[in-house]
């Protein structure tokens, strides 16, 4: 019997993937009924597809307490963290200490998060540096998404740290999102305003007023490095 080599592998794939139009599909189907060789080739293609589908039917969820992530949270994150650590090392005692412990810590959310069991919580630190309202909104929406998409029995802890132009998000006289921030705070999202950015603004004569319950006691660098060392997932927006 003549082999059905006149049907290319691309055509057979297209048949298996439902890419042929009905007429072509019928023709190939009818021909496969008559030709065991063509039928075998089609089965072979379909089997590969089925095997791939079967192999990824259930994929392992990421371990929440186990190994280290590898991308921004891990690989890039480690690079960022290393840079931050150097920066902090160089400037230790110059700026950060002036502001640490000077301001009152808003105890509510911080205390609440500290009481949660560490092993079973997904922890995210979002870092906003942009003063663009769209980027600010994206950060707030991502925080909302993280909270909303947590599965049953899954606990997520989210913190947002703002510095540079991103501090505008937390300045009560400037932010367009005070309501959204308050709503997230009610869901235990903690907001940090970078103490160094505040200091710089105040040195320029700007009076910085923060939205209620914002924690102004850390530099952004400090928060990022600390949280990453504690295994938090980090995302810069």
């Amino acid at each position, binding site marked *: 019997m003549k082999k059905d080599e006149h049907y290319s592998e*691309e055509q057979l794939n297209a048949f298996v*993937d439902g*890419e042929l139009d009905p007429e072509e599909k019928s023709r190939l189907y009818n021909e496969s009924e008559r030709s065991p060789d063509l039928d075998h080739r089609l089965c072979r293609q379909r089997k590969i597809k089925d095997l791939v589908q079967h192999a990824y039917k259930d*994929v392992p969820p990421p371990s929440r307490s186990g190994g280290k992530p*590898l991308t921004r949270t891990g*690989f890039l994150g480690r690079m960022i963290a290393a840079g931050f650590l150097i920066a902090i090392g160089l400037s230790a005692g110059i700026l950060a200490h002036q502001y640490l412990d000077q301001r009152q810590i808003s105890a509510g959310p911080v205390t609440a998060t500290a009481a949660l069991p560490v092993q079973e919580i997904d922890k*995210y630190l979002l870092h906003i540096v942009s003063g663009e309202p769209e980027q600010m909104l994206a950060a707030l*929406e991502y925080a909302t998404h993280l909270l*909303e*998409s947590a599965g049953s029995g899954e606990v997520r802890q989210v913190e947002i740290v703002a510095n540079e132009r991103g501090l505008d998000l937390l300045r009560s006289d400037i932010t367009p999102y005070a309501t959204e921030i308050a709503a997230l705070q009610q869901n235990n999202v903690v907001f940090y305003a970078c103490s160094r950015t505040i200091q710089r603004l105040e040195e320029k004569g700007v009076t910085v007023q923060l939205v209620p319950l914002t924690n102004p006691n850390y530099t952004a660098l400090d928060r990022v490095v600390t949280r990453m060392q504690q295994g938090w997932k980090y995302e810069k927006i």
Partner: protein
Amino acid sequence: MARSMILGINQRRTFRKLLGNSRSRLYRMAYAWTHNPHLADDLVQQTLCKALSSQKQLKDPGAAEAWLFRILSNCLKDYYRAKREVLSAEELVIVDNRTPEHESEEQQLVRKVRRAVRKLPLPQCQVITLVDLEGFTYATVAEVLEIPVGTVMSRLCRGRRSLREFLTDIRPQPESVRTAKLIGIK
């Protein structure tokens, strides 16, 4: 004004819902591309974040899924660009630390197929998984990966051919030599 604000809120809510619904599928795809659960999780996180910060770029809500997978693909590209090397075997072992003695036949089959998929060059792996796992049309895959449809077809062809070769030992054999491994395959 109030109406447009409400519309905006609703759209954002719908968008967040879409992201929530897509998360597990994005994760499965990221896992199939990397075979590393942590990396896959990070990629999904970045994808969702980028999607939220650039949601205004999405003009056609009907194309949202392809758009999300395109972001995922770009996140992976960025990752490799930053790392400038393929994941080492050591990293990939994270998900592969079971021994055959403790696995069911079904698990062995899954592992074997995943190992075969992992051997594929990433472009072929991406095309195959987008078509087979997501059921995307060739045109959508072309859109996701930003390549011509012809390239999708040729990569699919080469990829499936390679998979066939990698999986020769689970090809149906004559009854007399058929092993128990084949029982699970329909």
